[in-house]
C-alpha cells in the first residue's frame, strides 16, 4: 500500500518535471518560460520529496524532507521574481503576440519608481495615451 503511494507520488513528480522542461523548451519568451518552469519544477521536486518521506517512514527523514519542501516553497517564487525583474530591465524582447505590458508606460527605469497615472509624471516617463471614443466612431 505504501509502495503504491510512493510510486504514484514519484511518477506525478517526474511528470511535473517533464512538463516544466517541455514548457521551457517550447514557449516563446522569458516570462512565459519562467511561468512554466518555476511553478511546475518546484511542484515536481516537492512531490518527489513527499514520496521520499513516505517511503522511509521515519521521523528524522520526514523532518528533512519537510524542510526541503518548505525551503523550495519559500525560495522558488523569490528567485523567479528576481530573475524576471532583471530580465525585464535588461530589455529582453517579449513575444510578438504580447497583448499588454503595463509597466512600460508607467515605470521609470532610471529611478525605479512606479507612477499610477494620477500624479504628474516626469518627462522620462511617456504618459499613456488614452483614446476617447467619439459617438460617431464606428466600433
Amino acid at each position, binding site marked *: 500500500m505504501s509502495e503504491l503511494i510512493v510510486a504514484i507520488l514519484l511518477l506525478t513528480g517526474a511528470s511535473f518535471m517533464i512538463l516544466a522542461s517541455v514548457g521551457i523548451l517550447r514557449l516563446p519568451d522569458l516570462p512565459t518560460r519562467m511561468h512554466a518552469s518555476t511553478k511546475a519544477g518546484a511542484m515536481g521536486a516537492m512531490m518527489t*520529496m513527499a514520496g521520499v518521506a513516505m517511503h522511509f517512514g521515519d521521523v528524522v527523514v520526514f523532518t528533512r524532507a519537510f524542510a526541503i519542501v518548505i525551503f523550495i516553497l519559500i525560495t522558488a517564487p523569490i528567485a523567479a521574481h528576481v530573475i524576471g525583474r532583471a530580465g525585464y530591465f535588461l530589455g529582453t524582447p517579449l513575444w510578438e503576440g504580447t497583448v499588454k505590458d503595463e509597466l512600460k508606460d508607467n515605470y521609470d527605469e532610471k529611478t525605479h519608481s512606479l507612477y499610477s497615472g494620477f500624479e504628474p509624471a516626469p518627462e522620462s516617463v511617456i504618459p499613456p495615451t488614452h483614446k476617447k471614443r467619439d459617438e460617431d466612431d464606428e466600433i
Partner: protein
Amino acid sequence: MLNVVINIVYFMLSVALLFAFIRLTKGPSLPDRVVSLELIASIVVGYVGVHAIDTGVSSLLDVAIVIALTAFLTAIGFARFLERGGRKSE
C-alpha cells in the same frame, strides 16, 4: 513494483534534464539560461530524492538540501549581476 517505477522515473527525469539542457545551450538571452539552470537544479533535487529511495541511504537528503540552497543563491547572484549591467544580448 517500486524498482520498475524508479527506473521509469529515472528515464523521465533524464528526458527533462535533456530538454532543459537544450534550452541552456540555445537560449537567446542570459536570463533564459539562468532560468534553465534553476530548473536543472530542481530536477537534480528530484534525482537525489529518487536515488535515496533507490539505494535506501537517507543521508542523501542532505545533498538535496545543499543543492536547493546553492540553486537559490546562484539565482540571486546572477540576478544581481544582470541588474548591475551584464552584457545586453548573449
